[in-house]
């Protein structure tokens, strides 16, 4: 993948497919350490399945037996010296608190760090394709935060779909403004 944001889009799609009602995409940057977490309340995976999703020759798809999503994310973080962890609770094991937690740690000063790219575009793509599920996106860069929670938007919109063009444009603009503010703050801090 050319951008980490594409890995994010790809792996978050798995959460939606697992029947998640809420998928959280959390980016936490502290200096040169970037932690990506994708947390969902979907159907979860058994221990065996968790072990095998990192294997490129394992997939739940029946049309073909190769799934590259998680292996590509694993590669992207490990090539920076980081690591990938997955924990999961199946619906059978816990009918209430089930779901999957993917956590990837990256070292952004490593020469093989893939640039984050356009995360907003990935969030928008997820919302466009899955207007009936909720997403919480939170990017914390050294304590300065960009955040979008579709549950809040849904409250305002009621039955107007989240993937209506005007709503998508609002979300795009909102994220862009938040990122501009974040980098302005950063510039200001740099001057001090």
């Amino acid at each position, binding site marked *: *993948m050319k951008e980490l944001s*594409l890995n994010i*889009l*790809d792996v978050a*799609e798995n959460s939606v*497919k697992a029947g998640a009602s809420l998928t959280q995409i959390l980016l936490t940057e502290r200096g040169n350490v970037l932690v990506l977490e994708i947390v969902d309340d979907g159907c979860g995976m058994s221990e065996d399945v968790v072990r095998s999703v990192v294997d490129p020759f394992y997939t739940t*798809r029946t*049309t*073909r037996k190769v*799934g*590259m*999503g998680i292996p*590509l994310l694993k590669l992207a973080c490990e090539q920076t010296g980081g690591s990938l962890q997955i924990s999961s609770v199946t619906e059978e094991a816990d009918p209430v608190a089930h779901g999957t937690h993917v956590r990837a740690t990256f070292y952004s000063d490593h020469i093989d760090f893939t640039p984050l790219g356009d995360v907003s*575009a*990935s969030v*928008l*793509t997820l919302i*466009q*394709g899955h207007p009936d599920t909720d997403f919480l996106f939170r990017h914390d860069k050294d304590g300065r935060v960009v955040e979008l929670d579709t549950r*809040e*938007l849904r409250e*305002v*919109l*009621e*039955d*107007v*779909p989240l993937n*209506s*063009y*005007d*709503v*998508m444009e*609002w*979300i795009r*603009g*909102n994220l862009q*403004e938040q990122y501009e503010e974040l980098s302005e703050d950063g510039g200001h801090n740099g001057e001090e």
Partner: protein
Amino acid sequence: MKSLAELQAIKNRMKDKVVLRDGMEGARVVVGMATCGIAAGARPVLNAFVEGVNKEGLEGKVTVTQTGCIGICQYEPVVEVFEPGKEKVTYVKMNPEKAKEVIEKHLKGGNVVSEYTIGAVAV
């Protein structure tokens, strides 16, 4: 700032439109968004369709949706166009520029852009 008040205004404007959409029977543009598609550049292609359809005023006639792996990963980004009463058209190795052309010629003009279809590209 893109405020929630602004979102509220969008909602009030959209409310009446929602009903119209339900009964619609137009073309469906489906973009493959599995690992293979995403890696090959499906995200900007999808974006080009969403934007182009709106820009050309086709929202009432065309819906843009996403799907998983279609099974021809080597031809990604793959875009399928379904129109009622017509055979499915499969566009392969798409990019945003080709997407614009498909919107203009196919979705607006009614003529399939044959050179981008799987029949023309696959050897």
